[in-house]
């Protein structure tokens, strides 16, 4: 594997309204230092891709943003969201996760009906009105482009859906909570090309209402859907810039090698 100088990085100062900012974020799994001083600013109503090879720390970093690493890894540094450091101990993590939703690599609908998948967390959060729940189900499933396929069988088990449908259900379930940010952790890696395309279309539409941060292995996907891209390598953020610049005119040698496939 080629070695690069990690003291150098190129983090562009992207213009726009910031939604969430990572300041000197470091992650440790026991003694293993997984993320070194990540400084990234994510913009509101934009799609940002996190790219990099396996083990580069991009998923680990993503999971810091809604405290999914609690009890798994030690996260140091500051994550500023609406003026609050959500990486501090006395923050209500449940509230954080309600506002910063997440969709995982493998579809993980609950072993319940489609309807219950949508309403379970809402009911736990005190939304009892039937009309309101119905409205949330319909609007969220529509936003995730799944409504037409499932509207007549909402009481069927979610596990009977295809992988692509399950993943869109997970997106719908996440946005039913009306979060501000949606974190997507390689949402298409277990899906076929047609399902992948549907998810990509959905993501592009969703950015009107949500800030989206997506981890992806697929560089084509990053260019198709994201406005900004951050390149991770061995736990370091090497480069962060507008997606166009990253793929057409990268500033760092490592980025250039990675996107051209001349890597390792």
């Amino acid at each position, binding site marked *: 594997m080629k070695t690069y100088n990690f003291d150098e990085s190129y983090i562009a100062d992207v213009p726009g309204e910031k939604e969430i900012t990572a300041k000197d974020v470091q992650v440790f799994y026991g003694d293993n230092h997984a993320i070194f001083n990540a400084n990234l600013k994510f913009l509101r109503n934009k799609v940002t891709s996190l790219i990099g090879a396996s083990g580069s720390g991009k998923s680990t970093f993503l999971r810091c943003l*809604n405290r*999914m690493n609690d009890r798994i890894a030690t996260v140091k540094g500051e994550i500023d969201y609406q003026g609050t450091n959500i990486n501090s101990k006395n923050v209500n993590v*449940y*509230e*954080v*996760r*309600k506002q910063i*939703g*997440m969709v*995982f690599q*493998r579809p*993980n*609908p*609950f*072993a*319940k*009906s489609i309807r*219950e998948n949508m309403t*379970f*967390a809402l009911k*736990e*959060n005190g939304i009892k009105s039937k009309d309101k729940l119905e409205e949330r189900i319909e609007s969220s499933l529509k936003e995730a482009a799944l409504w037409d396929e499932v509207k007549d069988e909402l*009481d*069927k*088990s*979610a*596990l*009977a859906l295809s992988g692509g449908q399950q993943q869109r259900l*997970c997106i719908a*379930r*996440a946005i039913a*909570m009306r979060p501000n940010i949606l974190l997507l952790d390689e949402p298409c890696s277990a899906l076929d090309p047609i399902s992948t395309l549907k998810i990509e279309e959905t993501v592009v539409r969703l950015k009107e209402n949500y800030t989206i941060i997506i981890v992806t292995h697929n560089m084509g996907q990053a260019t198709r859907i994201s406005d900004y891209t951050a390149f991770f390598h061995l736990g370091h953020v090497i480069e962060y810039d507008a997606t166009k610049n990253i793929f057409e005119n990268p500033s760092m040698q490592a980025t250039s090698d990675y996107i051209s496939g001349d890597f390792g």
Partner: protein
Amino acid sequence: MNPKRVNNIATGVIFALVGIVVAILLFLIGYILFNGVPNISWKFLTTSAQAFSSGGGIRDQLFNSLYLLVLTLILSFPIALGAGIYLAEYAPDNWVTNLIRTTIEVLSSLPSVVVGLFGYLFLVIQLQLSFSILSGAIALTFFNLPLLTRSIEESLNSVSSLQKEAGKSLGLSDWKTITKILLPVALPGILTGVILSAGRVFGEAAALIYTAGQSAPAVNYGNWNFLDPTSFLNPMRPAETLAVHIWKVNTESVTPDAHLISSASSAVLIIVILIFNLGARYLGNHLYKKMTATK
């Protein structure tokens, strides 16, 4: 030898071994049912046992077995559920947890006579619970806990961690995720544990001789006041169970038809376990379908 041949031989050996297991099982069950079922009559099930004359029934013993099972499950299930949830979801992976697991394993391998004598000295004598269903239920809880705890822990562990992450990512507390999302999925496995432990409770004799006692005093099945000594629900009365009864008529009894009684009782015991097994599975499947929306 070529792989195909090796495979054929291995398959043959496995089939033969399975055949032996099935044959032993069928022979035992067949023998018990063949000898016992002809002696079962409505009268046998609904009259009380006779000490000296023939023609006694097993009404009280059968009820005692069922009641003991219910009491034991009421005592042991909540504790095992808590312990299982703790071990599967909360316990850190360190030496304390390993010590707890080892302790549970040791508990499950205690000889039942030892548990019975301990129950006699501690529950019956020291705590003055006397020979009673309650003493028996507590002694049986000692057996039941390891089995149930283990099966609950393993059922929870077998639920994909992705489900837990899904719950977490929606801002649900761990407790809500465990009770409302993981437990319904784990239900069939937990139920298997309950059925296995129930079979053990139903068949246990040694531990009960010293705790629940060997006498079945006449009780009034119309008296629902469980504090009344004559009530069939009173947990403080001594209660000979079916398994203890089988042991007793074969060792101490002077009834002339002891052989008939014990073979019929054995058949009843097996049939009741079977009914409990099927009933629990049916109920569990029904609940599982309802909770997980699978049809």
